């Protein structure tokens, strides 16, 4: 693995902390978009041959993760006028602390795993595990539907990193497919929340989700 891939993964780990530590939803989404673009670029440093298909996949992933989903979320924020996560179930400092513990745990745990030789020295597995954990933390400690979506996206990013591990570009495509699934999932959650709250799908009513 080239060192540049590892640097990207380290940035990914740091952005996890940022998302968990910020109260601003806008900032969180921006960072998630950044995560998405970074992860989309990752296959370029993993694959040895630059093919048209690879470039197409990278472009598509970046487009969906870096642009489409974030812009969708920004629009949702504008529509409902929610800008801050207020009163999470778990405070910012404790969640940052848990994330640190989780990341350290992931690094230690990955050392114990019987991995293939190629993957042993790289950061892929611990980064994937740590991102999964961070996403799970966001999901479980935040109140707002939009924070939940952010949590799901982080979870998915973790899965995507795992997907890259699995040899050959076929599986990168699977990663993209998962993205699409998440895209649909995101909408599903939003719709689900609206429906549960108001028993209608009228997005107008999202505004009363404000507290």
């Amino acid at each position, binding site marked *: 693995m080239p060192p540049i891939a590892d640097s990207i993964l380290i940035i990914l780990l740091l952005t996890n902390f940022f998302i968990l530590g910020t109260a601003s939803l806008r900032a969180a989404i921006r960072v998630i978009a950044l995560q998405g673009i970074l992860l989309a670029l990752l296959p370029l440093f993993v694959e040895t041959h630059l093919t048209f298909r690879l470039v197409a996949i990278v472009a598509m992933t970046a487009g969906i993760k870096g642009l489409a989903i974030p812009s969708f979320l920004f629009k949702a924020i504008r529509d409902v006028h929610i800008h801050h996560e207020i009163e999470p*179930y778990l405070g910012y400092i404790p969640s940052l602390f848990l994330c640190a513990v989780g990341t350290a745990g992931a690094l230690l745990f990955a050392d114990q795993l019987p991995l293939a030789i190629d993957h042993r020295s790289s950061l892929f597995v611990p980064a994937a595990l740590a991102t999964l954990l961070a996403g*799970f933390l966001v*999901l*479980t*400690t*935040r*109140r707002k539907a939009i924070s939940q979506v952010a949590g799901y996206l982080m979870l998915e990013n973790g899965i995507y990193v795992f997907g890259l591990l699995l040899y050959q570009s076929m599986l990168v495509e699977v990663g993209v497919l998962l993205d699409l699934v998440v895209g649909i999932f995101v909408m599903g959650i939003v719709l689900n929340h609206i429906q549960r709250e108001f028993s209608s799908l009228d997005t107008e009513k999202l505004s009363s989700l404000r507290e």
Partner: protein
Amino acid sequence: MSALLYATGALLFVMSGVAALLPGRPALRLTPLFMVLGAITGLASCALGMTGAARTLALPWLIPGGALTITVDALSAFFATPVFLLAGAGAVFAERYWPLDRRSARHVRAFFGVLTGALVTVLAAANTILFLAAWEVVTIAAFFLVATEHENQASRQSAWLYLAASHVAMLALFAVIGLLHASTESWAFEALPAGIAALPTGRAIFALALFGFGIKSGLMPFHVWLPGAHAAAPAHVSAVMSGVVVKMGIYGFIRVISLFDTVPVAFGTTLLVLGIISSVLGVALALAQHDLKRLLAYHTIENIGIIVSGLGVGLLARAHGASWIAALAFAGALLHVWNHGLFKALLFLSAGSVIHATHTREIDRTGGLARRMPHTALAFLIGAVAICGLPPLNGFVSELLIYLASIGGVNAAGADWSWLLVFGVAPALALTGALALACFVKAFGAIFLGLPRSERAAHANESPVAMRVAMVPLALACAAIGLAPTLLAPILERVTRDAAPGLTSAGLAHMLNGAQSVSIATVVAVAIAFAIVSILASRRSSAPTWDCGYATAAPRAQYTASSLAQSIASVFSWAMPPDVHSPRKLPLFPEKASFGSHVPDPVLDRALLPAIRHAMRLATLARWAQGGRVQFYLVSIGLTLVVLLVWSAL
């Protein structure tokens, strides 16, 4: 040839169902035609299958482990014969019973075609996956047919109960098939390795088969779904459900038993005991019913009990080496499968004819219909005589074989087990027969004799020709099997050998010959008695019956069906206590008061439903976990995952 014909018959049934869904009337008119053609083709294939060699038809199928393989052997053909006959008769009956302008006419025809097509597929499936899949289609189609009158809450409840019970049974059958696969490494029905019956796998197969096929066949105490479902479905569907759908359970028992080289004594004894309980309590409960179709439904449980106790006798005798007793018992049970299918279908169709004319299933709202509907009355009478096991009709022949087998236990060597046959089966059968007779005296008397008890009954008209024609082949078959059972001897011998390999069935023809003589003697005796009575009657002047001093015989002064049965039903009140609503204390000047009694099902209403209510109450304790917070759910999922990971790592 026989397999191809068989498949064509099944396909025609399904096509008839599909034709019912096509837009426009012409296609709808094709449905009975397809059904009748399918029935004729199928019957021809069964005749070939029962006399010739087993034939297989295999088509490719994409399901893993599955194969579209049907094998028409003697056993399959034997069980499929009544299906084809009843399906054809039922379709003709339905043309007028559920006419095209009636609500859900398409629904009834479509699911009837699918149901019968799937039924014959179950019977011939040589692949276990196909067997399960076809049976599942049977269940779903029957569910929709039971729910035909879904605007009626009772129908909906019966349908759901049927679906739930069937799927519980299905679960057990999946396990049975899984265990069979584990033992034979094949998805076909193949003989199991010798000696497996004594191993835990073999025992598990027997226990699960008893549970699964027990529910499917409506054996007590697994019968909870049966009375409601039979009562709610349209009459021709009830005829098929009672006549052949519950027989799938019997077929399942026999098919699974035939895969073992030995069957443990405990299994035979269990079947025997459950069979006796079903037959006696089934008929006792039937006696207490005042809904005509519910009454017939409980008689189904009774007859399943007779069949299963025949199987039990056969297994027990075979396990102890009394081969000829076993052959007689198996032949009796198998023949009763046919007979019950025939006379029960005849009874359900004639009940349908009564319901068609009077718009009620309540026996106490009918009366005096023999005058207005003579053909229906005759059909019902033939069915009633047959179901009571009286000569000269078919019920007598099969019950006689089971009687002879159980009495044969006296002569069996090493007879430490034969007391069960002699003192268990024969008296139980006798009791069942007597109670059935009482029950049909009540039913026939209340419905067809006396005076009409309601306006509708007073103005009832005989049913259209198509409905009456549909009953003719059934009645003829009942009479033919009763009067000439020896014709069936070769078929019965062959099927018995298939069902229980290694039996000598040499005595069978002899016994059937005896039954035939009794039947013919009965016909002669009845004819002579009839002649004498009519000669005497022509000499005597007629006078009205003594009316006990009541000037006019009012319809309300008649015995009701419940009052006629009350004295016998009260003997069984230990097993089925009635719910009685009567005025406690009458004041000096009595006001309007009412009396009602109704006998709830001892298993469903007294045990299962209260148990379910308690379970639901306990289950509400788990509601605390459903707080409505996504975060809480996620944490629980996460914790479960961690616990599982740790657990599997340890």
